[in-house]
């Protein structure tokens, strides 16, 4: 009996802890006006990506603030649903609810790639605007939704300029690559190497580490010496571990490093790493050091409202909502899928990363900046060193 009681206490403890750690799992609606335009959003408000989910929500609401939650005279109703962590079926359920029960005119999200792959075919009757690249690798050709849009560039297109830069500006002729063993990392590395090889560079070694890898020393021990190392590993933890081991082996001086996304080495993590990473190069659309008015406005209003600094991913979410608003304005609030699709394809806007428009394959085109870690004003920061204008994907896969 005593055990039963204790078990009960444990269960209650668990439940309360779970409730404490899951803030708002249920979706909520902003208003009930029937004349409004309904926009559905799927975001990870719980689970491992909850941090991103909140940031995305902030950015989207910020974009709505700038038009007073109104477009073409109609109120905008934002219906946000939690897609969970990596819960593909939950995301699909929520998408069904948004489409069938809430009758939204268009969807933004979801965040998690796997969820996007399951939601996209289902929502094939309404436009779905992805604020993340969600079709890497072998899924490229299985889009299943002629209304699917991607605000950010594809992964290989993100790193393509970096490969050009390494060859043309830095005189790199040979590289060794290391990346996580999964689709996204393949694409990031592929963009670099495609550009690099097209110029005449040579890839002498490619290593792939399991996603959960924490010990990179064996890969570094087996490294072939090249002019540079390219890292397609995602996520700050892996980078921290890899860089630290790179440093312990004294390799920073021997082989400069190119990384796929600046965003995987955010400011707090850079400060963690210290001066050894000065000179590491990466590429990204949006950087906090950009001076164009759109970037400045986004940065300032975000910091004023949320007291934190937005990153490239937040800028994608903000841009995504801005693009949607522009298209809705063009249709006069009409959410007929084909009308909206046409309007989206015609959107031309200045966004925080620069001039934006969709390619024919419905992938966003914005300028990309090759950047370098430097110490500016006492802090390690990404400083743009060369800008590459936006262009269609180098392999256009979306007819």
């Amino acid at each position, binding site marked *: 009996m*005593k*055990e039963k009681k*204790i*078990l009960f206490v*444990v269960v209650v403890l*668990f439940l309360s*802890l779970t409730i404490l*750690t899951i803030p708002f799992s249920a979706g909520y609606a902003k208003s009930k006006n029937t004349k409004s335009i309904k926009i559905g959003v799927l975001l990870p408000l719980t689970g*491992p990506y909850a*941090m991103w989910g909140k940031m995305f929500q902030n950015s989207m609401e910020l974009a709505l603030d700038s038009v007073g939650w109104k477009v073409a005279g109609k109120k905008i109703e934002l219906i946000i649903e939690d897609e969970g962590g990596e819960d593909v079926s939950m995301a699909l359920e929520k998408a069904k609810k948004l489409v069938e029960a809430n009758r939204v005119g268009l969807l933004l999200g979801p965040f998690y790639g796997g969820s996007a792959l399951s939601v996209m075919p289902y929502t094939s009757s309404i436009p779905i605007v992805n604020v993340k690249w969600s079709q890497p690798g072998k899924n490229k050709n299985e889009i299943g939704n002629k209304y699917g849009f991607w605000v950010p560039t594809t992964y290989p297109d993100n790193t393509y300029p970096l490969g050009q830069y390494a060859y043309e500006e830095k005189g790199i002729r040979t590289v060794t690559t290391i990346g996580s063993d999964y689709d996204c990392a393949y694409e990031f590395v592929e963009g670099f190497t495609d550009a690099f090889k097209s110029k005449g560079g040579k890839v002498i070694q490619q*290593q*792939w*580490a*399991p996603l*959960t890898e*924490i*010990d990179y*020393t*064996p*890969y570094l*021990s*087996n490294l072939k010496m090249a002019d540079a190392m390219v890292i397609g590993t995602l996520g*700050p*933890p892996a980078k*921290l*571990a890899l*860089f*630290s*081991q790179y440093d*312990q*082996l*004294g390799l920073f001086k021997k082989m400069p490093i190119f990384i796929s996304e600046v965003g995987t080495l*955010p400011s*707090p*993590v850079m400060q*963690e*790493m*210290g001066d050894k990473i000065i000179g590491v190069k990466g590429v990204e659309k949006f950087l906090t050091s950009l001076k164009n008015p759109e970037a400045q406005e986004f940065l300032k209003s975000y910091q004023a409202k949320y007291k934190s600094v937005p990153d490239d991913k937040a800028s994608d979410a903000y841009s995504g909502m801005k693009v949607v608003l522009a298209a809705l304005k063009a249709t006069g609030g009409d959410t007929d899928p084909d009308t909206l699709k046409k309007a989206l394809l015609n959107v031309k806007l200045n966004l925080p990363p620069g001039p934006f428009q969709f390619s024919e394959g419905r992938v966003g085109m914005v300028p990309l900046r090759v950047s370098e870690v430097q110490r500016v004003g006492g802090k390690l920061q990404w400083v743009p060193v060369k800008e590459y204008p936006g262009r269609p994907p180098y392999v256009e896969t979306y007819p």
Partner: protein
Amino acid sequence: MELIILNVLNGVSFGAILFLLCSGLSLTFGVMGILNLSHGALYMVGAYVGWSIAVHQGLNFWLAVLAGGLVAGLLGLIMERGFFRHLHGMINEQVLLTFGFIYILTNLCLWIWGGVPKAPYTAPSFSGSFDIVGDWTYSKARLVVTGIGIVLAAVLWFFQEKTRIGAIIRAGMDNKEMTIGLGINYGLVATFVFILGCFIAGAAGVIGASLFGVTLDLGMSILLLALVVVVVGGKGSVQGALVGGILIGLIISFGKALFPQISTFLVYLVMIVILLIKPSGIMGKKVQDR
């Protein structure tokens, strides 16, 4: 040749970390019959606490090791006295509970230390590298970790094989009821061992952090390897954790060098082969339930 030496060094030092982690896990499993799935999470907590001491406060690295161990030991005390003691023989409940502790501890860490991972940290004298073979250099921190692993293995071996309390612990693993029937408060002994195991996990976290840093998913990601080591080495023995740790460390290291495509798979293959040949693990003992 150079590559062989490097891979052996890599394997042994990674094995040392695995040993540090698994010695506690294996002991508590052997003594209490509880497979503490949150052992990896205690490792993570230790690593975070160590970061607060060594990096945030800028204090001595060994103090950080001690603090990491103490905090993990304290958490172990709370877990054991507050929960496991009341779930005697309820295997499912215990496993669920230890699994739940992973989430609780991870969320606590998120709350206290935030989501940004911490870079590897170590004592200033251990950072950097020196030349070993040819123009190849090797990290000092890794050698230090290996050294600590060897020292701890020796200390634990002495404790378990050469002291009276060690004999009591082994007696309890052989036959718990008989041990109690001789007037030994085995519950207390088990609590002590559990706390010791948690202490080692926490300290190991700080030592491991000098190579790998700390992240929130460490508790989960390191758990799997730890379980493999315990299965391979055999539960309840220091020698088993050492042999298992080094063996898995070497397999991973050479696997990455020679067969990168199947290196992860190789670890499980070895585990299965050993389970088939010797189900109780290389150094395992048969543990009686009574």
